[in-house]
């Protein structure tokens, strides 16, 4: 333990310098190097320790290499053979022992973190349970404690531990919110994964799918939105409120027959496709078309995004299973009408 501390002390100043350097990198809501929660912080600390050790190794090797290459070049007229050295037992033991020592310094906190972060919270009454189901190419979030299901935007209360149970409905995906925690694969039934994280601060964090899952792998993004406990409770209530349907009864009928066979709003519809309750207030349409709003300086108005998506879903997310509304017999006006209805369907919880 003592030795470990000694080494740590020596690399502490290095650590300081590199955390400065590294933290200059990337967006707060996305970068691994700007952790926003304890799990990501623990992983980042390990990374800083390993980076510091590795920089020390690099400096030593590069220094020896540079010295050797400059000092021992063959000079003109140098014709006598250099001494043929067999090896040096002492030196060889030293460079076996030092890497071993460095490995131990890294291995001890690694194992500690593995077991600390591997805690199973699935029976913890204080944790928010969330079942994540990945689909080609969208994310479904179910809250069994509240009997609520949503898609694409994961709403969580700040400070609470969120206990995830991950599974996939089709191929393997990987659930990743870099600034909150490392990734975890979503496997089919039989090999379900569990893990947890928490977000102390309110905010929206970008999530990604990290496992190649088909054509729209790159577009399978989602957001984690951390809100206060009151807002979260309000959100749950809003989610459970009866569905809001289009005012225009004709359009409502069209919407019911064409969309609600797969999608759900409030208490109506089916579970096959993403739940649309309050979709107009989400961070994005289809996970990839960012809506204008706080912190999304590059977003478009939600109505534009909704229209873009509904007029040609394949061009936004190639290979997704949503039928083109035009093929369902909807006219351009009807599609625009549904787009407008959905864009205005917002939940009031913040």
């Amino acid at each position, binding site marked *: 333990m003592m030795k470990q501390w000694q080494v740590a002390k020596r690399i502490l100043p290095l650590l300081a310098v590199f955390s400065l350097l*590294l933290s200059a*990198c*990337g*967006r707060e809501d*996305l*970068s*691994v*190097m700007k952790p926003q929660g304890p799990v990501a912080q623990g*992983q*980042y600390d390990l*990374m800083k320790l*390993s*980076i510091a050790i590795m920089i020390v190794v*690099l400096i030593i*090797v*590069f220094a*020896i*290499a540079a010295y*050797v*290459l400059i000092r*021992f070049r*063959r*000079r003109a007229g140098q014709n006598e*053979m*250099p*001494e*043929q*050295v*067999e*090896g*040096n037992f002492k*030196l060889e033991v030293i*460079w*076996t022992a*030092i*890497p*071993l020592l460095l*490995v131990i310094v*890294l*291995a001890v906190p*690694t194992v500690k*973190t*593995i077991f600390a*972060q*591997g805690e199973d919270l699935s029976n913890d009454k204080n944790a928010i349970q969330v079942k994540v189901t990945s689909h080609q190419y969208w994310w479904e979030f179910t809250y069994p404690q509240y009997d609520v299901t949503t898609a694409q935007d994961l709403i969580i209360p700040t400070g609470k531990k969120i206990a995830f149970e991950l599974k996939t409905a*089709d*191929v393997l995906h*990987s659930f990743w919110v870099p600034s909150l925690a*490392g*990734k975890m694969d979503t*496997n*089919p039934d*039989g090999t379900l994964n569990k893990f947890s994280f928490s977000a102390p601060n309110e905010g929206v964090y970008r999530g990604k799918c*990290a496992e*190649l899952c088909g*054509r729209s*792998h*790159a577009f399978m993004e989602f957001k984690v939105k951390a809100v206060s406990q009151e807002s979260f409770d309000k959100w749950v209530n809003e989610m459970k409120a009866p569905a809001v349907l289009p005012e225009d009864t004709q359009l409502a009928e069209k919407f019911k027959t064409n969309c609600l066979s797969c999608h759900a709003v409030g208490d109506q519809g089916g579970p096959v496709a993403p739940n649309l309750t309050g979709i107009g207030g989400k961070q994005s349409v289809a996970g990839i078309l960012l809506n204008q709003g706080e912190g999304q300086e*590059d977003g478009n108005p939600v109505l534009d995004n909704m229209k873009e998506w509904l007029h040609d879903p394949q061009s936004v997310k*190639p290979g997704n299973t949503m039928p083109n509304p035009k093929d369902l017999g909807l006219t351009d006006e009807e599609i625009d009408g549904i787009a407008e209805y959905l864009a205005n369907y917002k939940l009031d919880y913040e």
Partner: protein
Amino acid sequence: MDWITTVDHKKIAVLYLIAGGFFFGIGGIEAILIRIQLMKPMNDFVSAQVFNELITMHGTTMIFLGVMPIIFALMNAVVPLQIGARDVAFPFVNALGFWTFLFGGLLLNLSWLMGGAPDAGWTSYTPLSGSEYSGTHGVDFYTIGLQIAGLGTLIGGINFLATIITMRAPGMSYMRMPMFTWTTFITSAIILFAFPAITVGLVLLTFDRILGANFFDVAGGGNPVLWQHIFWIFGHPEVYILILPAFGIISEVIPTFARKRLFGYSSMVFATILIAFLGFMVWAHHMFTTGLGTVANALFSISTMLIAVPTGIKIFNWLFTMWGGQIRFTAANLFAVGFVPTFVMGGVTGVMLASAPADFQFHDTYFVVAHFHYVIVGGLVLGLFSGLHYWWPKMFGRVLSETLGKWTFWTFMIGFQLTFFVQHFLGLMGMQRRIVTYLPNQDFDLLNLVSSVGAFLMGVGVIMFLVNIVITTRKPVDAPNDPWEDGRTLEWSIPSPPPEYNFKQTPLVRGIDAYWKEKMAGHTEMTPAEPVGSIHMPSATPLPFVMSVGIFIAGLGLMFSKDDFGNAFMNGLFNNYIVVIIGLLITFGAMALRSLYDDHGWHIEPEDQDEKGVRT
């Protein structure tokens, strides 16, 4: 015709080099297309489908059809010479290995022309690679093409094992073997144990896809994670199959151009064996995020970190080989010297990845992409360039242009660092790998552009090397036996290129660096271990080629056995496995011919052993 029927290890080496270079070129073009697509955010240079095909084929082609055959080229060209042998143990089988590799590779690349390349990543994780989610024949080309090509690798590996065990010159004990021969030996042993795993995996996946089995299908009682275990229990050792020969090359080139014997020879041998052993123990570190549980993650974390120890031994031994030497910066040595720090970079990020909780963040991001390109390109490809510049005169009797070689080194090296160094940061900033494009304003834009520019520069470096080859090929064959003047091992004691039979008389080995030892004793050539006599040679034969054609036909037939061609004749031919049967008949027929017809080879009598085409 001569090239199709040859069984001479030197000619097979050239065939491997040409074929490997060809596929390396294809893989390189795929890489450039990938980098053009990722040059700017929301680019639509290629479609998402084509992009997935490009990344899959780039990885598969580079590993199985690009670098491995070039490694095999060098092994074939050099190992028999280094141990004082007249050929490999089984020349016929050696040719068979080459032809199955070539036809497997051709089959795989035919997919570009025949309705869609494989698109599930080079790892082809199920269920994405299953017929339900990958409906084209792409993954069939992957499973069957790799199966056939893998056959060649396995055959080659066994052949080298037999050669090195049984055909060393008198006096060459194991602990006197040159390092490149040692690493070939250990690499072949890894191939022997690792390739059967991928063979089985590919058979299971083929059964799932073509014959409707359920090995990886949950609904049918299978398990997709099983594929990951099978794949990586092969896939991790594969990394060492690739890198150990590079270690061997560096261990030959650095002592030659530092004019010193390799520092700590026995610890190098020990480290090589240890790396091979540990390489089989760490496959699950590719699967930390698969959910193996805390105990497995902890064990595989530690075992993976341990690989740093033998690797560190090697790095320091190379540095101390140069210590006190007289270093000459030839092109070959530039690549070798450039290899050391670059490979160390790849090594240290490897240790970082071994820490499982941190790997939850690194895994499947550009950090990993940067890491393994530092190992495979910065390690292996630099090693191969070094080896090619070093042994080119021995293989072809002409020394490559040093000036162009140095230009190749600098463009390639600078391009390489530009391409891959920044990718570490892209990964840490949240860019996952295998994405066809990315949204703007995520701080990914500039670094991706830098990376693409670097890739173009690497391309320029490779083109310079090709130009160098073309220019050199037009020069007369005039390389001396020992063009570097400080050659230490047996291959430098015979003419460049060597005569058909390599050694007129088998040499007597009196220590490590046998040829150098003789030179220091004032001799100009090796002391022979036998009198001049008649040399037995194997006959040339087209049978290996024919066998491979048969397997190729059978593979194609199997792949299309369920297809509807809209044509009764074609349907009848394929759907009843008739094409498969024809292909197998050709192969087994050739095998029967080989078994039943005794071919005793021929002899070169002493009066014909004039070492033709050779000057000193």
